């Protein structure tokens, strides 16, 4: 019983978000007055801030369990560590920014219902559970809470055919991808169980989908001469899981839905989807690569990841160049960013640079969340009754009409392009540094070249805003919460770009051979987070 209570405390962040979701859902039923409607987004944001703080507190110290970190809870099914805490806080930030930018937009489309905020909170909760899961079952449940909420959110503008079509497309492909994930998990369950039986380990009360058990089985089976890594069941299982998660993270070749869905969904939903779904999927990727790829015989899988990363970066950037719709352009650029993140995942599968690479992925995800949500918030900010300005040519001369909006969008775009002094620059720097440290030099070079190609379309939009003559007046922009969210995101992007060591302690570039363990987050004095930060790489250290 005490274990359960400790577990509840450990995952109090996602639990709080879920309870907030239910409260908002029920309150939203009665509220139709303007004042009541203003309360919903405000309450949502406050709840998310509280959940973020709760996560920070609970990820730092679990009462009565000072030594066993990262702690496993709920029958080893969940874990809480700095990596999970970081993901949760980033997700709270993404959801809070979305709730901040949404109200004016939703009000215009007459869909400012409590359900929007409730679904936003449920989706956040699902993604947080994915980040804290230590078992494929829990990853699956989190993935589905996230996806099902996003299906509904995509079709939330229910009087618009475009939105409904996006929802159908996302739903069918998402359900398809989930089926791949489940079948892959089933095969891994069987493969791990059979491997454990072969070396006559205990069978009962053991979850063969648990990451700890899987990585233990990988090591044991390799030692006993029947490596799990070459078992057809296991190989097929991993491949299917990568397909399933690849859909959610919109990796090439599973990206085809992304531009359509991102274009059709209501803009705040697109903003959240681009960050939230990726955060969840990459959290799962990170845990999986630590559990699966740290063992011997993982070379073929690294090759697959390498190919996926290179293809995703290339195709995302090339597609983005051809787009004339800004939402589609950002969708394609988000595909490319998934490719950069995959470089970090690939690097984190090498023991030598694992921690550094994990940190770089976390930092990049935070930077990506800020800059991408900032860009979408500017689109909402400038829009007015009747629709958003979606054509890139509409943004010609924006700097003359709305200088502040142009500046904010420019900061976000520069960051997306990876130009200093922005968070995106350091994010890319860390990712590629991690790749080089781990010995994956080729992918780092490819990534650098491709991101140089990517400069083209971001700078094109910036030049439109500053050098062309305006042909639109940009009257009556929505401003409101979207303006505040955009400016906040831009400021945070700059802060992270000027002083990235506020949050991460990056090892200096020269120390190639220095022992990588650096604290994941800023540590409290006197508290040792080293073990907690480094543990995901060696999941068995504390068992």
């Amino acid at each position, binding site marked *: *019983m005490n274990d*359960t209570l400790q577990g509840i405390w450990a995952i109090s962040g996602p639990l709080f978000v879920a309870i907030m979701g*239910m409260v908002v*859902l*029920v309150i939203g*039923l009665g509220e139709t007055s303007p004042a009541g409607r203003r309360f919903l987004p405000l309450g949502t944001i406050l709840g998310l801030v509280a959940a973020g703080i709760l996560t920070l507190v609970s990820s730092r110290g679990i009462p009565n369990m000072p030594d066993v970190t990262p702690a496993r809870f709920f029958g080893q099914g969940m874990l809480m560590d700095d990596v999970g805490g970081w993901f949760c806080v980033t997700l709270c930030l993404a959801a809070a920014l979305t709730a901040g930018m949404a109200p004016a937009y939703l009000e215009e489309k007459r869909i400012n219902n409590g359900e929007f905020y409730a679904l936003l909170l449920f989706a956040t909760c699902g993604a947080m559970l994915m980040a804290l899961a230590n078992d494929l079952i829990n990853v699956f449940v989190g993935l589905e809470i996230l996806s099902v909420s996003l299906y509904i959110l995509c079709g939330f503008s229910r009087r618009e055919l475009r939105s409904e079509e996006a929802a159908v497309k996302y739903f069918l492909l998402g359900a398809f991808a989930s089926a791949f994930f489940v079948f892959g998990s089933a095969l891994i369950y069987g493969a791990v169980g059979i491997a454990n039986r072969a070396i006559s380990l205990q069978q*009962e*009360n053991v979850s063969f989908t648990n990451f700890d058990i899987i990585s233990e089985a990988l090591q044991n089976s390799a030692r006993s001469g029947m490596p799990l890594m070459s078992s057809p069941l296991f190989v097929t299982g991993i491949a299917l899981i990568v397909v399933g998660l690849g859909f959610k993270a919109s990796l090439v070749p599973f990206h085809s839905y992304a531009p359509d869905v991102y274009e059709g969904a209501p803009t705040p939903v697109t903003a959240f989807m681009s960050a939230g779904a990726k955060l969840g999927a990459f959290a799962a990727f990170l845990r999986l690569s630590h559990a699966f790829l740290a063992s011997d015989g993982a070379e073929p899988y690294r090759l697959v990841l390498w190919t996926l990363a290179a293809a995703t970066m290339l195709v995302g950037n090339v597609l983005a160049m051809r787009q004339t719709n800004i939402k589609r352009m950002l969708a394609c650029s988000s595909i490319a960013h998934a490719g950069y993140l995959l470089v970090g995942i690939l690097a984190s599968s090498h023991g030598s640079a694992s921690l550094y690479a994990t940190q770089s992925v976390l930092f990049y995800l935070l930077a990506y969340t800020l800059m991408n949500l900032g860009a979408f918030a500017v689109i909402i900010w400038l829009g007015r009754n009747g629709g958003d300005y979606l054509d890139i040519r509409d943004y010609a001369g924006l700097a003359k009409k709305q200088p502040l909006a142009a500046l904010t969008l420019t900061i976000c775009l520069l960051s997306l392009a990876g130009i200093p002094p922005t968070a995106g620059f350091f994010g890319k720097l860390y990712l590629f540094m991690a790749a080089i440290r781990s010995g994956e030099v080729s992918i780092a070079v490819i990534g650098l070249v491709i991101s140089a190609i990517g400069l083209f379309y971001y700078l094109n939009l910036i030049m439109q805003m500053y050098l062309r003559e305006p042909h639109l007046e940009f009257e009556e922009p929505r401003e409101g919460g979207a303006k505040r969210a955009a400016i906040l995101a831009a400021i945070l992007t700059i802060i992270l770009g000027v002083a990235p060591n506020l949050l991460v302690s990056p090892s200096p570039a020269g120390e190639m051979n220095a022992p990588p363990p650096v604290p994941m987050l800023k540590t409290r004095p006197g508290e040792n987070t080293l073990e907690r930060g480094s543990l995901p790489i060696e999941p068995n250290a504390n068992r």
Partner: protein
Amino acid sequence: MPNFRDPSLSVMEPNVLSNSLLNSYIPVLVMGVAAIALAAALIGLNGILGPSRPNPQKLSPYECGVTPIGSARERFPIKFYLIAMLFIVFDIETVFMYPWAVTYIHSGGMMIFNLIEMLLFVGILFVGYYYVWKRGAFEWE
């Protein structure tokens, strides 16, 4: 670990029947024969014992009040979908209660705690139910 032993399988002790693959299907065969016999007996007894005064209404097959013969591509009012969806969602939740009920008796000192856990689960379901109710999904018109 609770005992998941399936009573219908307990007759098949390995040392008696494991020698033949087909033997293990005998219970299935018995089940099939019993089902056919029961159905035949009921219909047959009906025919023998019941008075027979047919009219067209009575001769048509019974199908829950729906016209039995018509186009297969008939459209249903969309309200049926809503009810069906709600039914599926709430119905499937009971599947979580079965394992809980089976293991509850073995929970020993944790009984109250396990009961609270299930009450929380049902409570969350009730939030959904309350939402659907207030939203008017149960009103036919």
